């Protein structure tokens, strides 16, 4: 049953061409291009640069998958999605992978029929306020006006947090990060709340980042990860193990610079399996031997991607924290390549 749905005026329910499609790998290969859902513009995670090229932490995941599957990291079509449109875009088949700092939750994983394939950033929700406000804790925000993106988990956390602390607030519902930034800068809201990484990225784009502080309270767990459609396990495996390949590469010291050299010289059996020197792991997921090698060469291993886009050397300046390797006290832990 591959007939596309034509729903006339039910435009918002873009079920078109989506359902029933079970072999995403074949579709992507036939198309020669990976459709990747990304943020409409969040510096460091996914934003087009001055030349219109998409860059960022989430964008590099798209590139790695494209490199693994198609052999070319540039064969990606980036589809900007808002908090409201992202899951519809995925379930309708408009995108093959959704790498848009989306929180992995129970209902999204089950009821929305998505499959989160892992976590590429462990985050939590925070608040940003102007320094002039004199607020040092989220507990002092009673009566405040708060800008919030609709359709996000943060919207629900915000309601719960203020309720739990017996405080009131006025929400200002906005559709995209850019709109939130504008409302916040105009003073139409006292505080802006979203994932702490998103706040840091937003603040980095301000003309006066030093005048804005991110409050210490982290009010929720926000494990952000790429998602695929439910029901195509093979495609899910490909995206999941591409992410693990990037994480494992950092653990074993494989970088975009030394990957060629290690392919010939490394005596570590795990590295040899990862890079396709000994076992042919790629065949098990319908790819060739060197899929993981290409994924790593696309933008480097997980650590390189983190450092280049959102790390402490960038304007966003996020520390590794929870996102360090498990060997460094963090939560990044790739399953064994065996």
């Amino acid at each position, binding site marked *: 049953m591959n007939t596309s749905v034509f729903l006339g005026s039910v435009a918002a329910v873009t079920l078109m061409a989506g359902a029933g499609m079970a072999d995403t790998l074949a579709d992507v290969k036939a198309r020669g291009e990976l459709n990747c859902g990304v943020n409409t513009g969040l510096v460091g995670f996914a934003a087009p640069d001055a030349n219109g090229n998409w860059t960022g932490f989430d964008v590099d995941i798209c590139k790695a998958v494209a490199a693994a599957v198609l052999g070319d990291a540039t064969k990606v079509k980036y589809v900007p999605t808002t908090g*409201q449109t992202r899951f519809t875009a995925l379930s309708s088949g408009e995108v093959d992978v959704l790498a848009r700092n989306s929180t992995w939750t129970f209902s999204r994983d089950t*009821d929305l029929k998505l499959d989160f394939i892992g976590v590429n950033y462990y985050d939590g929700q925070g608040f940003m306020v102007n320094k002039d406000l004199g607020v040092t804790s989220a507990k002092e925000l009673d009566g405040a006006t708060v800008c919030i993106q609709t359709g996000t988990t943060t919207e629900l956390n915000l309601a719960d947090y203020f309720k739990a602390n017996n405080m009131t607030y006025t929400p*200002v519902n906005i559709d995209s990060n850019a709109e939130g930034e504008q409302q916040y800068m105009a003073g139409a809201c006292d505080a802006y709340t979203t994932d702490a990484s998103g706040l840091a990225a937003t603040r980095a784009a301000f003309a006066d980042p030093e005048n804005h502080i991110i409050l210490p309270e982290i009010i929720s767990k926000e494990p952000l990860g790429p998602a695929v459609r439910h029901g195509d396990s093979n495609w899910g495996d490909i995206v999941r193990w591409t992410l693990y390949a990037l994480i494992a590469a950092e653990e074993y010291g494989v970088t975009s610079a030394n990957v060629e050299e290690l392919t010939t010289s490394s005596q570590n059996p795990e590295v040899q399996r990862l890079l396709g020197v000994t076992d042919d792991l790629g065949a098990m997921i319908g790819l060739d031997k060197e899929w993981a090698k290409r994924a790593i060469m696309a933008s480097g291993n997980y650590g390189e991607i983190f450092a280049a886009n959102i790390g402490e050397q960038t304007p966003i300046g996020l520390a590794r924290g929870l996102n360090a390797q498990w060997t460094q006290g963090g939560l990044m832990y790739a399953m064994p390549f065996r």
Partner: protein
Amino acid sequence: MTDVMVSANPPFRPSMLIHDRRYRSMTFQVIVFILVMALAWWLVNNTVRNLAAMGKDFDFGFLWQRAGYDIPQTPIPYTSDDTHLRAAFVGLLNTLIVSILGCIAATVVGIIAGVARLSNNWLIARLMTVYVEAFRNVPLLLWILIVFAIFTEVMPPPNAFRGDDPAASMILFDHVALTNRYTAIPTLAMTNDPGSLDLGARITFNWATIAFVVVLVAGWIVRRMIAAWAQRVQDRTGVRPTTWWMSLGVMTVPSLLLIWYFGLHMIPPQLRGFNFTGGLNVQNGLVALWLALTLYTGAFIAEIVRAGILAVSRGQSEAAFALGLRPGRTMNLVILPQALRVIIPPLISQYLNLTKNSSLAIAVGYMDIKGTLGGTTLNQTGRELESILLMMGVYLVLSLIISTGMNIFNASVKLKER
């Protein structure tokens, strides 16, 4: 005899379905009907099968789950613990609020602009032409965004009102504060509160509100009776009694008595903490949406009013002037009654347009039914098809109610042919 019957009415043959004029139209109607039904079946069947392929079912049960999100403007009590259904209802009320306010204001603006465009005053007529053309020919969404941006960027934030020498100050004797978030206006309070009528589901109406509505409606009916009495006296004697003071009296005195009885007074908003409290904060989203809808639809209504007035032949007003009627009376007694029957039918579709256009509210963060049911609820539950269908149903019912009401009104003013 049988032969005669046969020749007059030949036996039915299938080819007659096409070649016989008596059957042909029926044949084509049946074919079209079957095609339409087949298309409908194909659409429904496709949707169901594709939903099944995605593993999604069709279920409205989510409406009774906890919503979990907050809404800035709640005409009835609502917290994040309430259900998605109640959130949708709050959204519907917000849609109704902006639609009703918009329809009233657009009608006023439209009539003034439409009449002014026909004015003999060159400047006024040209100004109205500029207004109508500017608003009719720029998309509504842009007007909404522009108005909202003006409010956000130009008005001061609430904390600009703070301190001994504030950067901004309240207007209208410290009763109204224009900020970049909302317009803080006073609320009404009563020293002698009569309590509320509880309709269940935490929906209440204050008895004072009901009393005011009853008194105003009764006053309006009495005013009609006074006018009818004056008409009778005029018919009998030829002299119309002066009634304006009676009309004014029945419309205002009972209300003033109620205000005195309930001890109605205003509580001005005060800056406390981050925001103004104590008064009523009318969000800029609502004001911007309302203004933009009013001015946009008003431009269309202005054209309808102008067309309606121009449709009344010039001889009518010349005849009225010849009879010695003053211009105001000519307008009220001769031109408007005839113009209304041309104006009302297109006016209905403008009201429908305004109501449907109010769904652009999400652009300014005003939580109407598109923002609650079709926005946050849809997103948090992932029930796209159910939410959109429900929303389409709601707008359909709303539109049908509006057009029914307006059709009844139209029937009362249209040309009575005897």
